[in-house]
């Protein structure tokens, strides 16, 4: 028990790395995913098909394979990333595919009449997207996206397998020294849970904020 408490500063280091990886993955994938999602929903075939193929392909392979591919595979092609950035790159590539699909679902759930009404008053495509479609889509985007974010936090534990000392690997290293697996795994689990629980709480608040049906 003491071991777990004494090792807390070290675990906090790992926790910060987990946060760092998760934050980068979530932020970058959000931007790229929304841009690619726009291409998927509104683009012509030469925009649609590359995104479609990318999304289907990426979602069809285990994320661990992707991580190993980026870390061990890409150097063969001359692209050498250290383990931290290889982990971020692989997880981001994976998460982008999810953001694309969530965005597609959210935007396509908006009735096509909304686009027409926007056209009828003379709004251009980007104006319709900015003032009509996206504000409505946010509400439908948030719940599945927060799920994807918590998935990203949990999935970030996989980066321990290429030697990034995140929360997961920190826990394992402490166990290696103290031979006290139970208290440490429990501590680790609690920290992961707290991150994700606070995320879902924020998400529920946001959903209320973006709801346009007043209760």
């Amino acid at each position: 028990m003491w071991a777990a408490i004494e090792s807390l500063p070290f675990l906090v280091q790992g926790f910060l790395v987990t946060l760092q990886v998760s934050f980068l993955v979530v932020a970058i994938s959000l931007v790229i995913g929304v841009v690619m999602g726009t291409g998927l929903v509104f683009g012509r075939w030469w925009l649609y098909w590359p995104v479609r193929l990318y999304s289907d392909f990426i979602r069809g392979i285990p994320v661990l394979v992707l991580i190993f591919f980026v870390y061990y595979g890409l150097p063969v092609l001359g692209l050498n990333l250290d383990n931290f950035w290889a982990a971020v790159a692989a997880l981001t590539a994976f998460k982008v595919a999810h953001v694309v699909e969530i965005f597609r679902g959210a935007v396509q759930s908006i009735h096509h009449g909304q686009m027409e009404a926007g056209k009828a008053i003379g709004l251009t495509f980007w104006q319709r997207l900015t003032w009509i479609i996206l504000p409505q889509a946010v509400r439908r985007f948030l719940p599945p996206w927060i799920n994807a974010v918590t998935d990203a936090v949990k999935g970030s534990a996989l980066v321990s397998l290429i030697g990034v000392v995140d929360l997961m690997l920190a826990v394992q290293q402490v166990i290696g020294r103290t031979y006290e697996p139970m208290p440490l795994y429990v501590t680790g689990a609690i920290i992961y849970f707290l991150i994700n629980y606070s995320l879902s709480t924020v998400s529920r608040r946001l959903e209320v904020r973006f709801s346009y049906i007043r209760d």
Partner: protein
Amino acid sequence: MAEPIVRIRNVEKSFGQNRVLRDVTLDIERGQTVSIIGASGSGKTTLLRCINLLETYDAGSIEVDGVEVGYRSTGNGRRRRRSETELAAIRADIGMVFQLFYLFPHLTARQNVMLGLVKVRGKSKAEATEIADHWLDRVGLADKKESLPAELSGGQQQRVGIARAVAMSPKVLLLDEITSALDPELVGEVLLVVKRLAEEGMTMIVVTHEMTFAREVGDRVVFMDDGLVLEDGPPDEVLLNPKHERLQSFLKRLNLAGIFAT
């Protein structure tokens, strides 16, 4: 006679094998209200949607106030689709009210009317608010300006839809079966608003199933059947003395003979 504000010339459109518009030619004069009637699938809604290019068409041309709407002829019978920006500018001058209202659900009644004024017409917030309030007052929604669409009845939503369209001061207003989705007791309030607009000289093209309304409000009634304009004339002439057998049976099916005979 003055230049027509809307000139529809030989418009053709097919959905696959199905020809929905066949050589449609129609002129609408400034200040006129034209009702288009016909059975479902006769092409009347499609024709209306072609006027602001919500629907593309295969051949022919449509001009509003001397400007070709969706396409620009490039000589020798070819045409090029207008760019997004050109189209938006042209559509801003053509108002449309939809059967299912299509209000923006995340915006209040006032914001619904203001959006086009601010983003398209470049009005300041203050100016836009003033115009929006003016039109919401006009359609009888002075006390509903802050309401979201979900908090309004169908008839109220449709009146916001009308205010949103007319606030842009369009050259022509397209009304697409605007009372078809309303409860019967709410139809009257919406038609009253339209009737007032007609009296004030708004140019309108009204696709409708309300024959009594078509007769009352329309300067002209156009009957379409199977993509063709079969009759076109003053309401009483078209509705009371239908020349064409298709129109006779259409009116008979609506069982209107009794109503109009009085």
